[in-house]
């Protein structure tokens, strides 16, 4: 069943100055016909599992790469039937360690996406890598396979910090990888983790300054999150994980301030870009509640269909995923979200963005307007901007996205 829905003039303009930007008023009777579409590819294998990571990852003990890549291609064509015909804006290879994929598998996936949907001319095709994953030749091979943006998981620039995160590379590896990446790719982003065990704010400020001086177009700066089902989580429960010396809110505020002063605009809670074009376009699809197809073990997808917004989850275990592909169904779960659930996702994600959410868009997703009294109250408290069209945090509310979402959440 092909739903010939086409991407419309939606979504919202991606500028931080969205208040002045023209935005789409959706009249109550009019449904949004289609949303932008991206593809997420999950490659779950790693040579080593990091102690803070709670993604769906597996140690690579001679896994069958062809079988998994083959299954991903099958899954893609199955999901093409669900998404309908519309152009794909972006592909993102995440993991796990997608840099360990064979370049020909990457190329085959990109080609298949292009055949099935058609890639837009300036499609963003990103891949995550770790400093020790690849040398210069490897990077060039990725580029040859079609990757045009590299996201480097540096995590830290000091050896003690890297050790505390259980990483195997050192400061020199990190710097070399970033400079190598800059030679092969125009678009490079790097990830850092702050508020590491025992870290002092002063140390982080220095480290961040150094990182920003490297001149990449985009950085993701994450506060270390201790997830319960990780080595760090278990250590923390035993009381064996030292916490930061300074308060977390100070880390958060300083990070924003230092990045902004160096010309990196905080367009999302943990993401900073030098120009609007440098923003991670694929990730913006999530934050703007657009559509994406998720392929690979444990990948999640969201597709807007006539019957509602569909949430899809692939089998987590690679062997089950591969078996699923043989049967022609890789989904462990496929649900239609209620309009309240869809609205809550849009809120949770949209409030993270500096541009916020268009109120009319939210109304369309949730099937109702957000609570006017709460909205007005949060504006009065100075945490939401005094705009009636957009729901957007003020500078003081910038670190409060979750709390704001809780306040505005739609009830079932």
């Amino acid at each position: 069943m092909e739903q010939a829905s086409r991407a419309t003039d939606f979504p919202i303009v991606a500028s931080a100055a969205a208040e002045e930007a023209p935005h789409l008023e959706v009249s109550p009777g009019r449904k949004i016909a289609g949303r932008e579409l991206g593809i997420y590819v999950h490659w779950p294998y790693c040579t080593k599992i990091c102690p803070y990571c709670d993604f769906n990852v597996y140690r690579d003990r001679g896994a069958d790469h062809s079988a998994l890549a083959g299954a991903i291609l099958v899954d893609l064509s199955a999901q093409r039937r669900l998404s309908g015909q519309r152009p794909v804006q972006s592909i993102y290879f995440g993991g796990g360690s997608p840099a360990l994929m064979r370049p020909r598998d990457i190329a085959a996936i990109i080609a298949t996406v292009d055949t099935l949907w058609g890639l837009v001319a300036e499609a963003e095709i990103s891949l995550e890598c770790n400093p020790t994953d690849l040398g210069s030749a490897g990077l060039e091979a990725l580029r040859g396979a079609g990757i045009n943006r590299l996201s480097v998981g540096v995590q830290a620039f000091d050896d003690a910090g890297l050790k505390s995160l259980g990483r195997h590379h050192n400061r020199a590896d990190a710097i070399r990888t970033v400079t190598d990446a800059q030679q092969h790719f125009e678009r490079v982003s790097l990830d850092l983790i702050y508020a590491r065990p025992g870290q002092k704010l002063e140390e982080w400020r220095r480290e961040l300054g150094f990182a920003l001086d490297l001149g990449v177009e985009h950085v993701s700066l994450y506060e270390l999150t201790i997830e319960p089902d990780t080595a760090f989580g278990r250590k923390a429960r035993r009381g064996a994980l030292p916490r930061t010396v300074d308060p977390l809110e100070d880390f958060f505020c300083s990070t924003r301030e230092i990045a902004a002063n160096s010309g990196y605009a905080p367009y999302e809670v943990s993401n900073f870009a030098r120009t609007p074009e440098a923003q991670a376009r694929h990730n913006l699809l999530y934050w703007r509640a657009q559509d994406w197809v998720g392929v690979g073990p444990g990948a999640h997808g969201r597709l807007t269909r006539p019957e509602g917004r569909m949430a899809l989850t692939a089998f987590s275990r690679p062997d089950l995923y591969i078996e699923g592909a043989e049967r022609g169904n890789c989904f462990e779960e496929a649900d239609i979200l209620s309009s309240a659930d869809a609205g809550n996702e849009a809120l949770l994600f949209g409030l993270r963005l500096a541009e916020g959410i268009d109120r009319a868009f939210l109304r369309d997703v949730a099937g109702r307007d957000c609570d006017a009294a709460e909205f007005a109250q949060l504006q009065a408290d100075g945490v939401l901007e005094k705009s009636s069209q957009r729901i957007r945090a003020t500078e003081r509310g910038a670190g409060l996205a979750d709390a704001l979402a809780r306040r505005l959440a739609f009830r079932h």
Partner: protein
Amino acid sequence: MFPKERIRNFSIVAHIDHGKSTLSDRLIQLTGGLTDREMKEQVLDSMDIERERGITIKAQTVRLSYRARDGLDYVLNLIDTPGHVDFAYEVSRSLAACEGSLLVVDASQGVEAQTLANVYQALDNNHEIVPVLNKIDLPAAEPARVKAQIEDVIGLDASNAVEISAKSGLGVPEVLEAIVTRLPAPKEGDENAPLKALLVDAWYDPYLGVVTLVRIVDGILKKGMRIRMIATDAAYLVDRVGVFTPKPVDMDALGPGEIGFIIAAVKEVADARVGDTITEEKRQTKTPLTGFRTAQPVVFCGLFPTDAANFEDLRGAMSKLRLNDASFSFEMESSAALGFGFRCGFLGLLHLEIIQERLEREFGLDLIATAPSVVYELAMSDGSTMELHNPVDMPDVVKIREISEPWIKATIMSPDEYLGPILKLCQERRGVQLNLSYVGSRAMAEYELPLNEVVFDFYDRLKSISKGYASFDYSIVARRPGDLVKMQVLVNGEPVDALSMLVHRARAEIRGRAMVEKLKELIPMHMFQIPIQAAIGGRVIARETVRALRKDVTAKCYGGDASRKRKLLDKQKEGKKRMRQFGRVDIPQEAFVAALKMDGD
């Protein structure tokens, strides 16, 4: 009818945790009341909450059959009693049904506050007392020293105290012999006289209905008999007569000196008044028993459903609980902040805690408890008097001539080294020292204290400053006028009636400061800053501020996190239900009781 010369009725009394229930286990086992398979630890503690907390709340009666060394068969009626001071009433009515007591003393700990309180009560009931030194298996046991203590402090001959380990069973056969040879048989009792029986206890059993425990003094109680309860002046037909072994076993009749149960068509436990005299309808006794005073609630607090929609469920649950616990009272109350709920009376703080826990667990309710309060008596300027159970109801001060509050006499026993801080604590709480004495290295302090100062956290503080070694017992002795004022708490400028309380003027500032400091910890940060104030009649005596929230956000949030984050959001919405909104501030419900506990000194 069992010959009364071969009946022994006795209570087992002791300080909390000295091993009463464990000794009961051994006595039941040795006399074959239960098979080994049916036996479990503290088998008489049958309520979930008793088993979980490892304490006895309700006294239990068991009839044992014992062939003594003299070759004769005896009937032993054992009553296991609770040790905690809140349930002292259970002890007093149990004692009234017996002629003797086993006084259990933990040989590693010695005489404690409730040991004393219970011994005095037993002596008041003219009991014969057999001292039993328990836990002699423990390396720290010092039977000789504890015997000397019993003689010094209580003035009881301890030379022939029985030394046992209730846990291992060592020495327990000697306890059975001591019961037979040293405790008296029921004294008077005429089988041919009109029926006269003491109503010892009554409770609701889901299978049997209202079960009434009785002690026969004169006459014979038979199945099918029409009986009359004198105080309530109601007549019933006896459906069943029996005893607990501890399983209920039907009998045809009970005679003088015996203890057993009856089941008649009594509808509610409240209809069977403890201490009442039961007699035969057509041949009534001319000399009813004096009975005893019913237990009076001394601590009051409001209980409100977190979700206002559950008000009727709460009413239903309370009525059900009251079926089994007549010492707990409730009446409807409405609060500006909390909506509709109930003002409830309890025997003490443990009782309050237990009832609240049972309501929440057994009936799945979410409750908010307000500040516990004692009963004040107000003498009004117009000459009238009123009882105040709830600070919210306090009339305008200009109409009040005098406020009086209940005072207790407290006995505290503790190792010498903690005495300093204990005396300081009593002093701070407006205590008046009556007596201070030593029993070996143990100090015994007797104080008069206002109950209002004890109700909140006195016991917790006592335990913490004495590292758990001090023991405490009290009874209410008087009502005395005091310079009491109403303290209000304002959160974000709005008075929270559920937190208001009466305090002594001299203590107001300390109480107020402790309260706002505690609330500052308990109230989560909001998007705006929240002033918290304690005030007396418009004058602020303490103030704190909860800072505005600056950061509440997940660091990483991408496509794969959408479902998880959304489910978390739903859960957090649920979590908010355990909060109560006051104006614009969410206060967690545990704050209402926790705010009253003061840390440090």
